[in-house]
Each structure stands twice: as C-alpha cells, then as structure tokens.
C-alpha cells in the first residue's frame, strides 16, 4: 500500500473504513464464471478497422455487448451458448510483455507555428516530443539514475536551442524530488536542482524562461509536518536556487491542507507572476504571487470560493490572465486578470449558454495579447478549448472527443498547440496534440513512446 504522507488518526481511521468496505465487497461471490465470458464469440481488436468486413465484426462485437450485457444483468448469462472457438483467432498473438500504456503530454511551448516542444510522461518515465510544423517526433529525455518514476509537467522555450522542462521524480527510497531538464537543440539533459531540506515530496509544476539561462520554476513541497507549501526556484546561468515564497496564513480555527503554485509566467528577469491555490477543509481559494526581481509577494485575488488557479500567461508586467477551476463539486471555471496593480475576476462560476459547459475546469492558458487568449481544459465529458477576448468566450470545438487538455501554447491568433491525453479504444491513455490554425483544431498525431 502506498502511503505517501502522514495521516492524522482521524484520516487514517476513515481510510481504514474505506479499505474495510473494499475488502468486504471483494468477498461477495456470485455465479459468474470465466466460461460465462469465454463461451461468447469474440473479435480481437487487431481485426478492427475501416474495412467493411471489419466494420461488420465491430458491429457484431457491439451487438454481443448490447445483447449479452442486459442478459447478464438479468441473470441469464449462463444460459447463453455460442460456439466455443473464437472464429477469428488462429494462433496466440506475440506475447511480448509490456505495460498497459499510460502516457500523456502535460505542457507545450512553441517558438513559432512550426517549432514546439511538449513534455509529459510515459508510464513511469519522462517524455519529450518536438513539433517541426509537419509532425511530432520523440526526443529522448533522460531519467535520473536510480529513479523509479519521472515526469515532466511544464516546458518553456526561448529559442530552437533553448528549452527548459520541469517536473519531479521518485528516487529509490520513494522520496519525490524536483527535476529540471534542458534542451540545447540536440539533446535533453538533467540539471541539478535543490530540494527543501527534509521534504519527502517536492515537485515543480510550472516554468517560464526569459532567456536561455534565466528561468523561474514553481511548484510545491511538503514540510516536516506534511503540509504542502509553495516552492519557487530560479535559474541563473547553470545554477538553480530556491527562492523564498510567502504562504498565506490560515485564519484562526482553520486547518490549511494544501498550498501550491501551479503555473508561472515571466516577462523579464524582474517580472514574474505565479498562480496556484490553497485549500481548507471547507473551501478552495485562488493564490497569486508576484516577483519583482527581489522578492515574491502575495497579490490579493478576488477570492470567491470554489476554485484554484492552474495556469497564467502574461504578455507584459501589467497584463496577465490566469485560469483555473476544479471539476469538484459545482465545477467552477475561473478567469482572473492582472493589470499590474490588482487582480480582477473576469469569469467565474458555473457556465450558462454560450459559455464553458458545466463540469469543466480550465487548466491551461496562452495569450498573444492582453485580450487574446486561448484557454483549454477538460471535464467529465471531454475536452474544452475556448477563445477568450478579455470579456467573453468563444467555444472552439476540438477534434477529438473524450480527451483532457493540460496545456496550450500560442504564437499568434492563428497558431496554437494544445496537448494532453485521451483514452483510446483499447483502453490505453495516450498522448494527444491538436493544432489551431485560426479556423479549426486538428489532431496532429504524436508518436508512441514505447
């Protein structure tokens, strides 16, 4: 059992109750045997496709599901008798063991319409891909020696030969540590990064670079009591250093549960804006902090409860757009805008007609001007991409259903790349990239990582 953080006795007791219910339900038996299933005709997926015969097979498979499942529900499964031998299988398939694929892209950074980098994870390893305007290709990214898991969460490119990606990895003892990798135009390489002393969980979620050697990354870490706190690190030259960041103090009588910075956007070495959120038992609240070249300071946000901020995009020191939300409870989406002095909520709440549908959360934003942004996200019913003009949304249908977008990068109003993942027909979670040309989104195939 994975136990990553210390639980209070009350939380431990609640978790044990869940496990007990799971164990008890697992002991429930009923007359449902393997032969109830294997005696049905089956249609191996490798024969699915667009050929009419294959389509017919697919229809057959669906028919089997439509007919058999209700019968199973009615307890009639065992009475179905069909030929034992699957007609379309003549030999065992190649038995090369592999993991159920679970990969995804978390973020993208584009220099132009024909040059983007995207990062994420593939099973337990880091993943990096490059877009040349025509196709995506894999760019091998390293994993720290001895690591048991690695993932990249964000990337920022300032030229074709200078990208920085951040994330985290688990070392051999299970401690989660910050991870930074840089791209020099040819290869990705790991850069050493500091971690807060004594923390068992440190991770970087966002990064923004203003030159090849000047980057700021944000994230969170757990302190010695297990409380999650904000983290910021800056790169100067080849060295990364932790910066002091303020943490909102909980009001009297409340218990702070989580505090994190999720995204950051810098327009110069002395102007960065980071966003995130914090939560108490009863509420989620947005958080924004600004870097003036010397210190980080909290910038008060219009904290209507119910959401945190996930991503921010600044086009100047006085023009930032932050988005967020949580597909949690009432499923709030949120847009907040910084004018250099104050944050103002421009959109928040459950959507009405013509606006983002209920059940979605904004996760990524990319702006090409103070009032021209593309916002992406996901929800229980699929993906979301919206054009934001500073006041209203325009819904832009995306090309794939059932996907989650985690990041977007635009270089003009007619050139955006959104990345994320989706569950394919085989049940694998795989990478996804869609390009916006000013008129429509189209899927740009991404290579399989393994």
């Amino acid at each position: 059992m994975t136990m990553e953080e210390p639980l209070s006795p009350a939380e431990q007791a609640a978790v044990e109750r869940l496990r007990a219910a799971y164990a008890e339900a697992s002991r429930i038996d009923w007359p449902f045997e393997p032969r109830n299933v294997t005696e049905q005709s089956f249609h191996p997926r490798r024969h699915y496709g667009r050929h009419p015969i294959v389509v017919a097979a697919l229809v057959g498979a669906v028919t089997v599901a439509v007919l058999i499942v209700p019968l199973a529900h009615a307890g009639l499964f065992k009475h179905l008798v069909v030929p034992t031998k699957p007609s379309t299988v003549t030999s065992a398939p190649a038995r090369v063991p592999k993991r159920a694929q679970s990969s995804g892209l978390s973020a993208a950074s584009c220099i132009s319409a024909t040059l983007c980098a995207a990062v994420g994870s593939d099973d337990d390893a880091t993943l990096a891909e490059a877009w040349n305007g025509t196709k995506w290709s894999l760019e091998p990214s390293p994993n720290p020696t001895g690591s048991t898991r690695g993932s990249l969460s964000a990337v920022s490119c300032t030229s074709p030969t200078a990208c920085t990606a951040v994330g985290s990895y688990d070392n051999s003892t299970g401690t989660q540590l910050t991870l930074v990798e840089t791209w020099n135009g040819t290869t990705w390489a790991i850069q050493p990064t500091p971690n807060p002393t004594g923390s068992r969980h440190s991770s970087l979620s966002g990064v923004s670079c203003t030159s090849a050697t000047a980057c700021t990354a944000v994230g969170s870490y757990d302190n010695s009591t297990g409380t999650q706190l904000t983290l910021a690190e800056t790169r100067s030259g080849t060295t990364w250093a932790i910066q002091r960041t303020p943490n909102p103090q909980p009001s009297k009588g409340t218990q702070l549960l989580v505090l994190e910075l999720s995204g950051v956007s810098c327009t110069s070495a002395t102007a960065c804006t980071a966003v995130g959120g914090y939560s108490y038992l009863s509420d989620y609240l947005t958080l924004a902090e600004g870097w003036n070249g010397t210190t980080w300071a909290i910038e008060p946000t219009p904290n209507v409860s119910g959401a945190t901020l996930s991503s921010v995009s600044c086009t100047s020191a006085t023009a930032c757009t932050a988005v967020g939300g949580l597909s949690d409870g009432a499923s709030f989406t949120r847009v907040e805008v910084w004018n250099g002095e104050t944050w103002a909520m421009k959109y928040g709440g459950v959507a009405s007609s013509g606006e983002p549908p209920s059940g979605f959360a904004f996760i990524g934003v990319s702006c090409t001007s103070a009032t021209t942004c593309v916002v992406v996200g996901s929800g229980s019913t699929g993906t979301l991409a919206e054009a934001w003009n500073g006041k209203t949304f325009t819904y832009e249908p995306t090309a794939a259903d059932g996907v989650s977008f985690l990041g977007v990068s635009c270089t003009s109003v007619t050139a955006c790349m959104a990345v994320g993942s989706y569950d394919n027909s085989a049940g694998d979670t795989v990478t996804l990239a869609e390009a916006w040309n000013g008129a429509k989104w189209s899927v740009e195939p991404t290579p399989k990582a393994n």
Partner: protein
Amino acid sequence: VQDSGVGNLVGSYEEFFVASKAGLMGLAYLLTGNVQESQDLVQETLLRAWRDWPHISSYEDPKAWTRRVMHNLAVGRSRRARVRHAAASREAPTTSADPMIGHLDVVAALHRLSPDQQRALVLHHVIGLNVAEVAREMAAREGTVRSWLSRGRAALAADLGIEQGNAREAGEPR
C-alpha cells in the same frame, strides 16, 4: 477442438478472471455503492476484457486497463439507472443479512465527496497507486490530486464523525 493459441488465450484469460474478479467487485462497490450494480459492472468489464484479450493480455498489468474501463463504464451509466437503483434500495431496505450493512455509512460518505475526490481516494488509498500514477490516470496535475486527497480524507473523516480522540474506535466497521 481448440488450437493451442486459442487455448492459451482462454487459459490466460481464465487465470486473469479468477485473479481479478474479487478486486473488481470491491472497486465496483466503492464506485456504485450497490451490490447488484457492482456485479453488473464487473461482468461488463470482464466481458470487455475478453473481447480485447489478445491486446490486453500482452500488458504487464491488465488490471490497470480493467480499472480504467470500469471507471469509464461507471461514469457512463445513465443517471436514470442510478436513480432506479436508489429507488429500489429504498423500496427494499437492507437487511442484517446484507454483507455490506456495516459499511453503508462509509460508502455513503464517500459518495458525498466530489467525483474526483472519490476516485483519487480510492485509487491512492485503496488500490495503492502513488500520487503521480493517480494524476496520470485522472489526467490531472499532481498538486490537484494532493488537494483532492487532503480534502477528501478530511471531509470523509468529518462526515463519519471521526474525531481525533475516537479515531481508533471509529476505524472499525459499524
């Protein structure tokens, strides 16, 4: 007469079925809170696994696939069906013979959490995935998952009336 290839497929599926059925039932019950619906969900999931078995059987861990498919099936089931089950449950009160009677409160409390909190709690604390794995499975940021876990645990304990002082007693099924 089956050829050896099909025989191997059937044999490996049957082993997987036997090894998975119980765990899937436990997971399905936490997802649905209803024994009958859980059995339906397990059957449908294992049927789908069989239909794609040549593909799925090549995985190191086919259970991850079934877990994901089961979740999607549970989410995709119509609200009407859940209402129907809820109505049926009201019409036929649980008896003391119901093996889950001692766990109804914790499952009800689980279902009062947001769907994301529910799923994150189950994947992390019951199934045993680490936060990064949960984040990937739920297509969310790790920080968001931690938030769901922290708030979900706290809300679950509060809903169950578990205070710090009586945590040990409350940890036992009622």
